[in-house]
C-alpha cells in the first residue's frame, strides 16, 4: 500500500456562525454551520477508502448514465439526437479508469453498454465502443424510472469503488409505475449512490425530478432546450469526476434534554435533512450529505435546549463530519464546530440576530414561497399566488439572489421589488415556470 502524505488528503473545516446569547427563558438556538472541503486535489478518498485509491489519479469511481428512451423522446426527433450527443459528451468527460455503464430507460431498464451486468472501464477503446452503442438508442415505450435506478444500483455496486454516481435524463412523467414504486426504489438506492437528475423539454414533472435528486443527494435542473444537453452533461460529469469523498455525514451531538428542531442544507441549495437522521450512539445522529469535492456548503441547525439561569453557558450542539468505513465503524474527519448557548440579561446581546442565520432563514422562506405561489397559481388562487410570489420577489431582491429574481420576473410583473408588489403575468411560458420551480431552492451566500 502506498504511503499517503497528509497534504494530499482533503481537509474538512467547520465554521459556526451564531448568536449564542439567549434571553432569560430562551430555548431556541440557531446556527449556520459552514462545511468546507479544500486541498484534496483529486486524491480525496485516501481518507475514506485508502484501499481503493490508486496513486496518480483520482479516486476510483463508477458512473451510470440513464437515458430516457420513451416514445415521447421522438417528439421532436431532435430530442433523442441531443440526448445521444449529450451522453457521448459525458462519456468523453470520463476520466481514464472510471467504471461506467449506459442504461436505456423506458418502462423497463436495459443495458446499452457494456451489457452483461458489468461495468466498462473507461479508456479510448471503451469510450469509442460506448459511443458506437449509443446509435442503437431509439425511442419507444413508457417511463418507469424506478426500474432504471434499480438497474443502475445493481451495476454500480458490482464495482469496488469509492464514488458511485448516476446521471438520469427524463423527458416525461413517471407514468408506468406507481409513485409508491418510485419511492421504494429511491429508498432502496438512497445512500448507495448519488444521482443528478435532469428534465428535458417541458413535459416532465418537476416534483418527480427534484424528488429523485433530493433523495439521492444530487442536483436537479431543467434543460428546456435539448440543444443545451451536451454542455450540461459535460459539466455534470466534470463535477462527478471532482468528487473525492463519498457518504460524508454531518454528525450532530446534542446534550440531554435537547431536541433538534431542524437540520437543513441551505447552500448551495435548500435541502431538508431533519427526517433523514440516523442515530449514531448516545445523543448523536448522522445526516447524509453525499459526496464531496473541493466545495463548501452551509447548514442551518436549530435546536431547543433546556432553560438555564442567566449567566449559564452550555454546549447546545457539536457538529462533526464522519465517513462510514467498510467494517461498519465510522471515521471522524476531524473538523468540528461548537454551537453554544449563553443566557444573559443583556437585551442587546440576546435580541440581535446573527446575519448568517437571518440570511438563510430568508433564503429558505424564498424557496418555500416560490413553491407555494406556483402551487396556488396552478390551483387557480391568483390572489394567494400574487401574495406569495410578491413576497418571493421581495426576499430575492433583499438578499441579492439575482438568478432567482430573474426567474421570478418571467412569471410576474414586478411593480416594486422592495415592497414585494407584483402582478401575475397573464401568459407565462411553461418552461419559465418549470425553471423557476426547479431552481427555487438555489440560494446565494451572505455578502461578506
Amino acid at each position, binding site marked *: 500500500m502506498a504511503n499517503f502524505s497528509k497534504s494530499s488528503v482533503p481537509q474538512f473545516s467547520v465554521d459556526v456562525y451564531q448568536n449564542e446569547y439567549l434571553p432569560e427563558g430562551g430555548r431556541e438556538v440557531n446556527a449556520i454551520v459552514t462545511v468546507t472541503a479544500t486541498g484534496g486535489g483529486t486524491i480525496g478518498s485516501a481518507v475514506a477508502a485508502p484501499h481503493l485509491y490508486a496513486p496518480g489519479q483520482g479516486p476510483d469511481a463508477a458512473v451510470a448514465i440513464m437515458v430516457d428512451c420513451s416514445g415521447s423522446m421522438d417528439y421532436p426527433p431532435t430530442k433523442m439526437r441531443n440526448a445521444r450527443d449529450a451522453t457521448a459528451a459525458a462519456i468523453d468527460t470520463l476520466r481514464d479508469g472510471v467504471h461506467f455503464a449506459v442504461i436505456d430507460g423506458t418502462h423497463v431498464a436495459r443495458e446499452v453498454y457494456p451489457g452483461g451486468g458489468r461495468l466498462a472501464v473507461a479508456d479510448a477503446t471503451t469510450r469509442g465502443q460506448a459511443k458506437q452503442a449509443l446509435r442503437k438508442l431509439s425511442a419507444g415505450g413508457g417511463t418507469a424510472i424506478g426500474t432504471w435506478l434499480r438497474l443502475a444500483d445493481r451495476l454500480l455496486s458490482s464495482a469496488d469503488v469509492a464514488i458511485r454516481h448516476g446521471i438520469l435524463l427524463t423527458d416525461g412523467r413517471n407514468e408506468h409505475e406507481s409513485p409508491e414504486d418510485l419511492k421504494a426504489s429511491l429508498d432502496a438506492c438512497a445512500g448507495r449512490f448519488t444521482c443528478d437528475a435532469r428534465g428535458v423539454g417541458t413535459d416532465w414533472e418537476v416534483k418527480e425530478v427534484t424528488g429523485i435528486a433530493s433523495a439521492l443527494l444530487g442536483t436537479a435542473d431543467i434543460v428546456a432546450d435539448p440543444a443545451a444537453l451536451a454542455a450540461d452533461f459535460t459539466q455534470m460529469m466534470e463535477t462527478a469526476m471532482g468528487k473525492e469523498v463519498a457518504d460524508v455525514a454531518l454528525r450532530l451531538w446534542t*446534550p440531554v434534554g435537547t431536541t433538534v428542531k431542524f437540520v437543513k442544507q441551505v447552500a448551495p441549495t435548500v435541502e431538508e435533512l431533519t427526517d433523514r437522521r440516523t442515530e449514531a450512539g448516545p445523543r448523536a445522529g448522522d445526516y447524509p450529505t453525499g459526496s464531496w469535492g473541493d466545495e463548501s456548503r452551509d447548514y442551518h441547525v436549530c435546536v431547543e435546549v433546556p432553560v438555564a439561569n442567566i449567566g449559564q453557558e452550555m454546549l447546545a450542539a457539536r457538529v462533526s463530519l464522519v465517513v462510514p468505513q467498510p467494517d461498519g465503524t465510522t471515521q471522524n474527519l476531524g473538523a468540528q464546530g461548537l454551537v453554544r448557548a449563553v*443566557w444573559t440579561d443583556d437585551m442587546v446581546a440576546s435580541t440581535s440576530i446573527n446575519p448568517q442565520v437571518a440570511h438563510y432563514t430568508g433564503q429558505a422562506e424564498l424557496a418555500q414561497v416560490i413553491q407555494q405561489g406556483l402551487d396556488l397559481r396552478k390551483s387557480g388562487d391568483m390572489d394567494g399566488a400574487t401574495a406569495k410570489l410578491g413576497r418571493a420577489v421581495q426576499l430575492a431582491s433583499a438578499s441579492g439572489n439575482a438568478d432567482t429574481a430573474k426567474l421570478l420576473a418571467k412569471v410576474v410583473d414586478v411593480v416594486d421589488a422592495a415592497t414585494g408588489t407584483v402582478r401575475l403575468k397573464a401568459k407565462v411560458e411553461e418552461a419559465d415556470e418549470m425553471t423557476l420551480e426547479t431552481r427555487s431552492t438555489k440560494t446565494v451566500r451572505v455578502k461578506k
Partner: protein
Amino acid sequence: MSQMPQQTALSRCPSCEEPLESGDRFCGACGYDLSVVPARPDDHPTVALNGSLPPDGAAGPAWQAGSGPGTGPAGPGPLPAEFGGAAPGGHEPPAPGPQPPLTGSPLSPATGVRFDRPPQPDEYPLQAPDPRVAAELTTPPEGTTVCVACRAGRVDHDGYCENCGHAQPRERDHMEQECGAIAAVSDRGLRHHRNEDSFALGNAVLPDGSPAALAVVCDGVSSATRPDDASLAASRAAGEALLAALPQGTHPQQAMHDAIVAASHAVNALAAEPATAREHAPHQNAPACTLVAAVVTSGLLVVGWVGDSRAYWVPVDRSGPPARLTEDDSWAAQMVAAGLMNEAEAYADERAHAITGWLGADAYELEPHTASFKPDRPGVVVVCTDGLWNYAEAAEEMAQVVPLDAAARPLHSARVLVGHALDGGGHDNVTVALLPFPAPPQGAGSA
C-alpha cells in the same frame, strides 16, 4: 507533566527532614542533593498520580482538582496559604499560573529563610496519602472529571459536559490570592457566564529598604471583543511595571502613571491579534478594560485609575471617616462633576455606567489619573470593580461591609466583600483587593 522529576515525590528532605517544595533539586535548609535520592520504595501518591493533572499536560485546568472539599477552584495565582495544605504532600506549590512574576516576594531580603510556609503545616499528616485524594482516584472511571451540573457526564476536552452540555467552571471563575499582607479575590458573579475581571498583586522593597505593596484590578469591557484577555493583559502589565519601577526609586505616583501607560500598550497590542475561533462577532471591537491600582508604602498611598473601577480608604479606627479615592470615568460622574445632575439622579439613569475612559486601542485619549495621599492613621485600601461597589457605593457603605479586622486578615475580608456582592445579586463579575496601610514590613504580614 509525565517528565516531572522524581524528587517531587519527596515531601521532606531525607537528610534533615526539612519540608520541600516540588521541583527543588537541593534541600533549602541543608543543601542535600535531592537528585541522588532514589524514589521512595513505598507507593505514597505522588503529584504525577494525582488525577488533577490531565494527561495532555499543557495548562492543566486547576479546577479538575476541585472535587476535594478543601481545594476549591484555584486561581491563576498561588493558592491561598490555608488551602495549600490540602494538596497532596502538604507542600504542593500552586499550580503554575499566568502571573508567576508577581507572586511571592521576588525581592525578599530573607533569601534562604522561608516565611511563606503555611502557618500550621503539621496540621496535616504529610507522609500519609490524603484520603480524599485517594477516594477521588478510585470513584470515577479512569480518573475522569465529572460534570458539576448533572454529575453524570464526563467532561470533554472543550470543557463541556458530554451528557448535559453545561460549561464547566473555568479557572478564572473564582480566583484568590494572598501575597504578603495583601490579598485579592475575584469571582464570576451570578449573572455573567465568564469572569472578565483580573487582578495582580505584588510586594516590592523601596531603595531605602522600606516595604511597598501594590494591587492592580481590571474589569474587561463586555461589549468589546475578548474583554477577559484585555483585563488579564492590563493587570499583568501594570503589576510588572510597578514591580520593576518601585525598587529603582521611581516616585510611586510616577511609577503608577507609567504602569497605566504600560497596561494601555498591552491592551492595545491585543487588538492586532486575531480573535479566538469561538468569537465570530461580525463587528469586532478592540479589546478594552478599566484599571484601578494602589501602591502603599510606609507613609504614602498612591492610587491610579482609568474607567469606573474604584479605590476606597477605610481607616482601622472606624471613628475616622472613610473616603473614596477615585473619580469614575463614567457618564454619571461627568454629569455630577458638570453640575448637571445630582448624584442620585445621575446614578439612576440607565446611562450611568457608560464609561468615558478605558484602556484599549479604540480609547479616544488615554488619561491616566493618579493621586497620592499621606494618611495620618492606619487603614485599609479597598481596590475593586463595579461588581462590588454597585452594592456599597458610598464610602460609608463600603466601610460598613469591610470587616473590622480587614488589615489583619485581608484574604478573609476580601472574601467577605465578594460575598456581600453575591448576596446583593452578583450581577457583574466581582473583584476586590485589600491593602493595609501602612505597608507592613516584609514577612511580618504573613508570619
